[in-house]
């Protein structure tokens, strides 16, 4: 760990600097007018786009980071490695997407490229959720590089060749990230951890931290789905649709959680994750001309499916398919992403005759296919035992990679003690 990780991180950063020097230039008035088809970005709107960029940025760094802090002893890594992945990923994402869409020798970047780069890191963060606690930081660096390359390729295929519509990226980000992560988790399966690891559990306050992430994601999801939409009507439709879908999803997720748990109690894991499924499912058809009730129904279905997934599918995956999905990304991103893709096919068939349902289906298929193949290859590379993987008993443990204050351990073992001690002096 001492040498592998710093060397790798520094090496990658040097590579990024070289690549930026070779390929990247800023967008200016001048080169915008020279560009052949510069209909999309106009410097006047870049200030407006910045608002959306900020919202997506909050989701990537605060939202996804805190959403994964539910593990008892893995909070530092969840937020910290999330931060690392996102910071590296957005540089690499800028490069890869820029090269794929490049016309001349160099490409120009503006706010829109920053938003797309943030999107590309989102896929890695989703996959990170599936392998959370079982990998080392070095492995995550490798995965970031490989996954973003695969993602950019798939996105190019979906957007430029199939000409499918995927505005909020249910398929290209959420379904892709989830199935990629699942494939990696499947290859990296540790049979030593077949029974539940003692540290893979949450405590009261770690779950509350995860709620911070949930709320940030919930609040800013409308921006995520509408960030790259055409300004005007389309964008406002995307915002409103996503908002209603999220609202309906919350209501049904609570109902379903209460229905499935003993004594009608709620399960905090369902609340943390399933309440967001509506936003994921709405991604693909957010900007289409669909009536309000359609988004309510879509959100409700996503909420129900997501809770059902947590209750029945995750145990099945772990025990039967030997895929251990720590955060349940399959239920939050995978299934709702697929639902989003299917819903877009339905919406196009019903309302929009100008677009092709076959291309939409092809986009869904290629997202899942490339994700699984890419994930398997990445998993095999990550399995080479030179990346400083944690041993089985050190999984879900911050102290392997972080300097952890001693008191924390004491606290989580005897929380009752601590609160008494700290409250005593007042009296």
């Amino acid at each position, binding site marked *: 760990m001492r040498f592998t990780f710093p060397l790798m991180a520094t090496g990658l950063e040097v590579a990024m600097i070289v690549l930026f020097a070779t390929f990247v230039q800023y967008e200016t008035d001048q080169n915008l007018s020279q560009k052949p088809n510069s209909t999309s970005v106009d410097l006047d709107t870049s200030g407006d786009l910045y608002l959306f960029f900020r919202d997506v940025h909050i989701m990537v760094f605060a939202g996804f980071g805190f959403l994964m802090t539910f593990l008892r002893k893995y909070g530092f890594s969840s937020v910290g490695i999330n931060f690392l992945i996102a910071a590296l990923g957005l540089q690499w994402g800028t490069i890869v997407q820029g090269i794929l869409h490049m016309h001349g020798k160099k490409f120009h970047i503006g706010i829109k490229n920053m938003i797309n780069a943030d999107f590309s890191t989102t896929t890695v963060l989703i996959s990170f959720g599936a392998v959370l606690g079982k990998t080392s930081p070095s492995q995550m660096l490798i995965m970031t590089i490989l996954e973003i390359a695969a993602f950019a390729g798939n996105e190019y295929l979906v957007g430029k060749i199939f000409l499918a519509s995927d505005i909020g990226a249910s398929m290209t980000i959420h379904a892709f990230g989830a199935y990629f992560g699942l494939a990696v988790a499947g290859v990296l399966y540790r049979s030593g951890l077949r029974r539940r690891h003692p540290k893979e559990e949450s*405590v009261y306050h770690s779950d509350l931290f995860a709620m911070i992430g949930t709320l940030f994601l919930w609040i800013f999801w409308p921006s995520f789905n509408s960030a790259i939409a055409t300004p005007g009507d389309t964008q406002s439709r995307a915002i409103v649709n996503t908002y209603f879908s999220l609202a309906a999803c919350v209501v049904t997720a609570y*109902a379903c959680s209460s229905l499935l748990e003993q004594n009608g109690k709620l399960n905090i894991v369902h609340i943390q994750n399933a309440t967001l499924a509506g936003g994921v499912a709405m991604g693909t058809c957010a900007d289409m001309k669909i009536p309000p009730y359609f988004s309510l129904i879509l959100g409700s279905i996503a909420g129900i499916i997501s809770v059902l997934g947590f209750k029945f599918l995750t145990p099945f995956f772990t025990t039967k398919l030997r895929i251990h999905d720590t955060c349940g990304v399959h239920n939050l991103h995978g299934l709702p992403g697929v639902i989003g893709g299917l819903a877009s096919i339905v919406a196009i068939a019903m309302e929009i005759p100008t677009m092709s349902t076959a291309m939409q289906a092809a986009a869904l298929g290629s997202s899942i296919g490339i994700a699984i193949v890419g994930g398997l290859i990445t998993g095999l590379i990550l399995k080479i035992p030179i990346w400083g993987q944690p041993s089985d008993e050190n999984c879900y443990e911050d102290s392997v990679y972080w300097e952890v204050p001693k008191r924390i351990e004491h606290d989580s073992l005897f929380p009752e003690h601590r609160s008494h001690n700290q409250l005593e002096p007042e009296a």
Partner: protein
Amino acid sequence: MGSKYQRSVRGCLPPWILTLEVILFLVFFFFTSYDTSSKAQKEFLGTYQGFQDVVIIAALGLGFLNTSLRRHCWSSVAFNLFLLALGVQLTLLLDGFLSPTFSRKMSINLTSIQRATVSATSVLISAGAILGKVNLVQLVFMTVIEVTAFSTTRMVAKRFLNVDNHVNMMYIHVFAAYFGLTVSCCLPRPLPTRGKEKDQTATSPSLFAMLGTLFLWMFWPSFNSALLDIPDERKKAIFNTYYALAVSAVTAISMSALIHPKGKINMTHIHNAVLAGGVAMGIPCYLIHSPWLAMVLGFIAGLISIGGAKILLMCLQHKPDVFGICNIYDTYGVHYTFGLPGLLGGITDIVLKALQVKWTEVSMIGYQILTDLGVLSFVIVMGVAFGLLTGFLLNLNWWKPPSVTNYFNDQTFWKFPHLAAGY
């Protein structure tokens, strides 16, 4: 031992919620469509910004504000999100039905959603007074009634008393606080000993509550200016709220130190009283022309908020049942966070409006004051009346309410992954 086992809401909660959601589908299906008139992009983005700030206040701010109890954090945050999601859908429909221009289909745009979100905040504020003593079924029922009551109040105030959109919305603090307190009054009181143990605040939950407070504090200017259309008034609202908040934060911290025998600062006071300035500024924010007035108002709001907290606590401790009013158990101090500063704001508004009337038309002053007082008292009366109704209905055993021994305990409502001995 019998009371230790919680009655299951399984047969009760999911059917209720799912039915409600299906009804919402149907109503949305028949009566709504999106607004397709295109607006200028700049204007649209402005609305979207304001809208998001309001959602941050409602979901993140109010959710975490109520997490100061040691064993009731999950419920506070998660129920808050649930009530918001449900309340917005209901309010949107009610607003559409009650609007004078309604015919066959209502069109939904970002402005109407923003208004619905602000309006649904009333439920979140009232919930602060009773959280911990009710289950989710009861809260759903309360949401339905309160949203209806508040929408009706606003409609009546607008149509018959000529109160504009901003002002009638900003009565939300007074309405919601007294609604919540009245409901709380009707519910059984927690046991003094058991209640105290679970009620006690601890360090790390206090920190979580501080997270909520900070978000509320940062975004409150957006909340107060959300419904103002004229740019000049909007600007004034933002400035005034900002200064009032700053002053009330300073006042709250210094007063909290002043009233403690050893000069220590009480975290609970900080959570609530730093916001008092923003609440008080709610109604009159567009009328005040100079910052000093806003600052004075913020100062007074901070004072009465801390004073209210202290006096209320003394009432509760020393003479429990002298007045009937002391029976009220206000979980998260809604009365002195929202109720009292809201009243202050209402009264300030009346005074400022009376001063604005030209001195030549003295007869107008009396009329003006009378109408404004009428509106304020109408809002309070509506709040108390519907609060009584709700409280009375919530007392029915039919809702399977949590028993008194299980108050303020997350374990009543949540599945715990393992037997969490000390959480």
